[in-house]
């Protein structure tokens, strides 16, 4: 089982000035989108709640975080294995050689 091998995520390194500006730009753009959503709404909401301003913003971030945590959690508990998992489990093939290749197509009387 590989869950014991899992290393906890490292804390993020301090951001540089460019990264801080990019992060501010991202927040600003997302804020503008939510503000627009106050005025632009679906004429015919399909799911009920999707007629509310900000629904798709909450949906996007909640699903992304939920999916990421769920999938990573599954990978760290029961899905994730070492990369050679099947190689170690699968039976070893018979050693290849001229004799093996020459007799590879023979039928059931391999003992002869």
């Amino acid at each position: 089982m590989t869950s014991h091998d899992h290393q906890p995520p490292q804390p993020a390194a301090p951001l540089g000035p460019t990264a801080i500006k990019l992060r501010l730009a991202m927040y600003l753009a997302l804020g503008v989108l939510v503000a627009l959503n106050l005025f632009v709404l679906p004429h015919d909401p399909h799911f009920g709640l999707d007629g509310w301003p900000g629904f798709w913003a909450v949906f996007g971030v909640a699903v992304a975080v939920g999916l990421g945590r769920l999938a990573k959690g599954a990978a760290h508990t029961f899905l994730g294995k070492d990369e050679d998992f099947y190689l170690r489990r699968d039976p070893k093939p018979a050693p290849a050689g001229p004799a093996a290749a020459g007799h590879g197509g023979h039928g059931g009387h391999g003992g002869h």
Partner: protein
Amino acid sequence: MAVTAATGGIRIVSDFLHPSLIFLACAGLVWLLPGRLGRWLPPIAGALAILAVLSLRHGDYAHFRYLGLDLGAGRVDALAVVFAHVFAIQALIGFIYALHVDDKWQHLAACLYIAGAFGCVFANDYVVLFIGWELMSVSSTFLVWLRRCPASTGAGIRYFLFHTLGGLCVLAGLLLRHQALGTFAFTAIDPANAQYFDYLIMVGFCVNAAVIPLHAWLPDAYPEATVTGAVFMSAFTTKTAVYVLARGFAGFEILGIMGTLMTLYGVFYATIENNARRILAYHIVSQVGYMVAGIGIGAAMTINGACAHAYAHILYKGLLFMGAGALLYSAGTAKLNELGGLFRRMPWVFYLYMVAAVSISGFPLFSGFVSKTMTITGAAESHHTWLALGMEVAAVGTFLSVGIKLPFFAWFGGPDKGLPLKPVPWNMYLGMGIGAFLCFWIGIQPGFLYHLLPNPVEYTPYTPWHVLQALLLLGFTGLGFYILRARMTPEAKLNLDFDYFYRLVARVFLAFCRQVVERLDNWWTEFYARAGLKGMLKVAAGSAWFDKAAIDGVVDGTALGVRRVGQGATLAQTGRLQDYLAAAVVVGLAIFALVWFWG
């Protein structure tokens, strides 16, 4: 165009040149020529195929009698044309991308594979469809094997075995169908009157469409295929299956449910995978899920959405595999934990990849936006609300994994790890450039795609709300990734999938062979050695005396000739499944040709 052929009482007169014939002829020429010359032919075949498809007119062509059956290989209608259109374009793009490859067997396998796909698209009956289906299965197996490494050999064998199983389902279904209904005609099946043999055929189609839980061959085999082979395979196998499902099984509710589950399943695994090509392979499962769901819902808009999404998907998925293939070709690995910081050294591969990434994510101005939203809207408007919501969840997962995670950890995600890079050939950039242009072109000119669709289009993608909704969904998905970025770091792990159970069945079978069959064989060998061999040796000694004294005296050299034939047959028994499969195809084609010309 006109093609006339008269062969032994069979006469075909048609107004169209079947694209399969172009690729079959190309395969023959590639076989005859050395690789350095032959590699220039497939792009020409791709260009000719585009011309042939553009000149198509709706109608039924290429009817012929074979083995006492009336068959048809040229049904041209709106549904066939939309798939043929994009198949021809992607064939040209793929062969340009593969132009630097000297290995002629890769080009030959790709030509046969595409010929099979076109054969399926224009098939009027299940017999012709099955021939194209199996040609695709065999030739695509070689696109995996020709990477020539132990991992690809194993993956290719598993791929071939699973597709053989799917092909047998189709074969059993079509034979039982013929017995019950007296026809091989490949027409739409009414869900209310579907019989068990129809479901058998549908299961066979679902294998190639990678419908869960029959999908595990795809993320197993595609990452192990050749760099260029994966580009072709991403375009043709699953989309041919989507075509046949749309042709035969529209409106089957189970497909709507399974398709939506596929969209979710694919993005779930893509979120945790480490190998870039395996992430993309899982995203084929997810994106084909949209198409299968659209077909299963069966409304005019969702059928249109499935076809439009198949068209857009072939182009952007090909471009994604070309981008990931360029990483593998250049850096020697597609594992994200081994990549990182490559932006400064591979900026153009990144830009071209990102065009495909935003296309698949459904960003406005790119192809996925005009196709994916049509399927989701169609599902919601036909009151399949939960299915539509599931597809929206998958859209978030798509951008999270293919649009952000993969490019972030391949091209950024820390300092350059200093991997030595091989220069990417000009033709790979050209292939990617054409794909990127088409992704953008379809995004800004959706009418180019919509006029090909089988049903009248009553959908406008560029409304203020559609655009804002897409930007909200994707923008806040980006915020979700930002929150989780440390947790999303790729890990060098293998994630269990349904192939665990396939392999378990294989191990049980192997154990049965070793414990039961081998013991029986050993017992029989022992019995034979003790009871039968002595008597046989005496008979053989008498025969040998008679052979030397009498037979060889009359027909000198016969024994020598027989021995030489036996030695030749021994050499043919290499013990390699690849060789036997190739030999089977050659013998099969020879028998087909003999029956065709002299039957």
